[in-house]
């Protein structure tokens, strides 16, 4: 009789599972470089090992990497597909060795599409076709109680639909990405003088299209003027400011007319409205909500938040983060978790207060069959958390506590003041009962604005009328958080992949870092795709595939048919791209050059006011410095630059001297630098 082989997704998870099931008594050894745990649980002997994320990947059997179209693919050990996955081979050998002595197999990878795919592939390829016979351990946290319960209730073939959907998604994304990326890269190579990977993925295309559409609106924007009118009203020595009822007055003459008509005239308070509104607690976190809140509160990118949340999950501090659910089922032991939180410094008062009442959390509308909303486990951190981990942990804990808090009450008041037939409005609001806001702390985000002390019939003197010229604001660029929200709304990508797709757009040079400004290269790629392969950048096809993948996951769809359909669609688009390879290449190459050139431009020259200050490298010393593009016409503006690290333009000028400000990245923390060595802001007093 052999042992039970448990396969986890990551080494940290294997350690947690072993600790939980053995009560900390598991022995460890190293097999082919991978740590393996052994212990007995009752009569049963367990061996726990782990993958390292995906150890199998999809690729084509061809050696030649520039050929397309490619519609044949196989699953290979990841080290043969991606050189960054060098450790995969050892993991596979280790698991194959361990499988030979096992009589029972348990898939304990994360219970979602990716985890199911990882477990399925290992059971099929490394364990000799055990994917059908293996048992499934289902858990949402790595806390002892949850893991023990999962292993007491192992299920047979619990997630086969997920594994099929996961494998189909990988295959579709491979076929999609490899063909379009090769088509674009070959086009660029055919007319350009340098090679650069120009990629395009199934979700990447529509996401870039959202950004590109907004970028075009911004670059073509014409601000239209309007006027904002406000009045200052006095009564018994007190004054209040109220805004004209028409927020935007479209003509200067009309605004001036209001000013002349109202100034020094009597205003009467006509409609005074006061009310108390209830504000319920926010829904528990799913991954998208957590990413948005972390961006708002700490400025963390969605991919960074996901990484931090995964570390906290592997430390058994929070539940599985890749969830779409906003619901907390009673099975998670509300009180036990709050009692645990109460033992962590900083939360004891709030936890004790909540434990006195009935524990009924607010529930959001979104659910996820695999996992509940993200919540703390109630375990205390066993190691010191770094600043970012502490921040996300605090956010998750406070959101969980807030879910049990009562509704807050806010008093809202507004009044109308009428002068010569013109209406002005004033309003305010304040929290009269904090409810859940107390537990959510600084993340609650409600500000108090002083309420106007006005009663109906009160008379005021209009002492001043202010007319301000304004301009329509151009649309804002997406930030990483709002883009994530847009992807969710348009139902493209998955909760697990959206952050990664945004990061890829940045790393490919289609989008410039934090500002999410689409580069010339990004616009050119988008334009070429829209011209020759429009389905690729439209949302309809991608969303349609997502829906069909969900059908596969639920068991109502068939993956082979979906793959055939994808290949058929793609083949037509690739043929069109291939016919226009030269034109596509020319546009991309020229845009690539512009993007590179632009990355050296730091801003306008404050000395000659005609040229641009650029990063230049000296031909003799090879050192970089700032020089003016107007050098040949006599401008000698120049400045030294740090020789280490990456210089990134900020599009901002120094407030003191108007020279460009740059970011210097690399080594330690990024720092801002005004490039002018003689900037008055740098002089020591």
């Amino acid at each position: 009789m052999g042992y039970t082989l448990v396969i986890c997704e990551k080494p940290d998870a294997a350690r947690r599972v072993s600790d939980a099931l053995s009560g900390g008594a598991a022995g460890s050894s190293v097999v082919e470089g991978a740590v393996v745990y052994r212990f007995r649980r009752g009569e049963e002997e367990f061996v726990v090992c782990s993958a390292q994320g995906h150890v199998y990947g999809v690729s084509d059997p061809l050696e030649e990497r520039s050929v397309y179209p490619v519609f044949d693919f196989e699953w290979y050990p990841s080290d043969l597909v991606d050189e960054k996955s060098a450790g995969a081979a050892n993991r596979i050998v280790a698991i194959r060795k361990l499988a030979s002595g096992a009589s029972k197999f348990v898939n304990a990878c994360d219970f979602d599409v990716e985890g199911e795919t990882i477990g399925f592939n290992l059971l099929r390829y490394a364990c000799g076709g055990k994917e059908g016979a293996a048992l499934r351990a289902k858990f949402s946290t790595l806390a002892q109680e949850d893991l023990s319960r999962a292993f007491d209730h192992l299920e047979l073939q619990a997630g086969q639909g997920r594994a099929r959907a996961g494998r189909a998604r990988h295959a579709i994304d491979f076929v999609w990405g490899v063909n379009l990326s090769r088509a674009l890269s070959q086009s660029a190579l055919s007319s350009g003088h340098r090679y650069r990977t120009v990629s395009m993925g199934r979700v990447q295309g529509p996401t870039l299209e959202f950004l590109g559409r907004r970028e075009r609106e911004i670059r073509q924007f014409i601000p239209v003027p309007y006027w904002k009118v406000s009045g200052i009203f006095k009564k018994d020595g007190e004054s209040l400011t109220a805004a004209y009822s028409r927020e935007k007055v479209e003509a200067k003459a009309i605004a001036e007319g209001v000013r002349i008509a109202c100034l020094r005239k009597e205003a009467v308070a006509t409609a005074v409205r006061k009310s108390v509104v209830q504000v319920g607690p926010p829904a528990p976190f799913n991954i998208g909500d957590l990413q948005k809140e972390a961006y708002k509160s700490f400025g963390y990118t969605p991919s960074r938040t996901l990484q931090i949340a995964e570390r906290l999950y592997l430390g058994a501090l929070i539940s599985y983060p890749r969830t779409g659910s906003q619901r907390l089922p009673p099975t998670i032991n509300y009180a036990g978790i709050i009692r645990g939180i109460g033992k962590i410094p900083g939360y004891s008062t709030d936890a004790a207060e909540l434990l006195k009442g009935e524990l009924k959390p607010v529930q959001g509308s979104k659910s996820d069959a695999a996992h509940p909303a993200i919540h703390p486990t109630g375990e205390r951190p066993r190691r010191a958390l770094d600043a970012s981990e502490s921040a996300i942990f605090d956010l998750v804990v406070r959101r969980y506590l807030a879910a049990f808090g009562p509704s807050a009450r806010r008093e809202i008041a507004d009044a109308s003041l009428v002068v010569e037939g013109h209406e002005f409005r004033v309003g305010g609001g304040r929290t009269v009962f904090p409810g859940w806001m107390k537990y959510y702390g600084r993340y609650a985000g409600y500000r108090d604005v002083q309420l106007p002390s006005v009663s109906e019939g009160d008379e005021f003197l209009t002492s001043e009328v202010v007319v301000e010229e304004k301009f329509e604001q151009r649309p804002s660029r997406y930030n990483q958080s709002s883009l994530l929200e847009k992807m969710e709304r348009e139902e493209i990508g998955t909760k697990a992949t959206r952050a990664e797709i945004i990061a890829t757009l940045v790393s490919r040079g289609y989008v410039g870092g934090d500002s999410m400004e689409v580069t010339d290269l990004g616009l050119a790629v988008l334009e070429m795709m829209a011209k020759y392969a429009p389905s690729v950048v439209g949302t309809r096809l991608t969303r349609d595939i997502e829906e069909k993948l969900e059908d596969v996951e639920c068991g109502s769809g068939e993956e082979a048919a979906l793959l055939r359909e994808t290949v058929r669609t793609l083949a037509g688009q690739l043929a069109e791209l291939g016919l226009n390879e030269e034109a596509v290449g020319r546009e991309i190459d020229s845009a690539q050059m512009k993007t590179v050139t632009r990355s050296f431009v730091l801003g306008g020259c404050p000395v000659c006011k005609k040229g641009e200050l650029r990063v230049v490298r000296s031909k003799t010393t090879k050192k970089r410095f700032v020089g003016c593009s107007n050098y040949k016409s006599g401008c000698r503006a120049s400045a030294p630059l740090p020789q280490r690290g990456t210089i990134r333009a900020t599009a901002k000028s120094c407030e003191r001297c108007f020279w460009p400000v740059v970011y210097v990245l690399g080594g330690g923390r990024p720092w801002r630098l005004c490039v002018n060595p003689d900037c008055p802001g740098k002089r020591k007093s």
Partner: protein
Amino acid sequence: MKCLICGREAVSDLCTYHTEARDKVKGAYPLWVKAYGRMEWKDYLDNVKRNVQTGQWAKEIAEFLQGV
């Protein structure tokens, strides 16, 4: 044919982006005239060019139209 402003592939004299921007610059002129009561075309272009809210392609078009 190349776009007279940016060198990209042109529809007639300008690329699609700058053609659209030109339509927008021309389309917004009546709104500015209405807003200020009166405004000369060249003053309008000058204002559009100097406004910090104006998009990059629209600014390039304003400059281009000033030279025409």
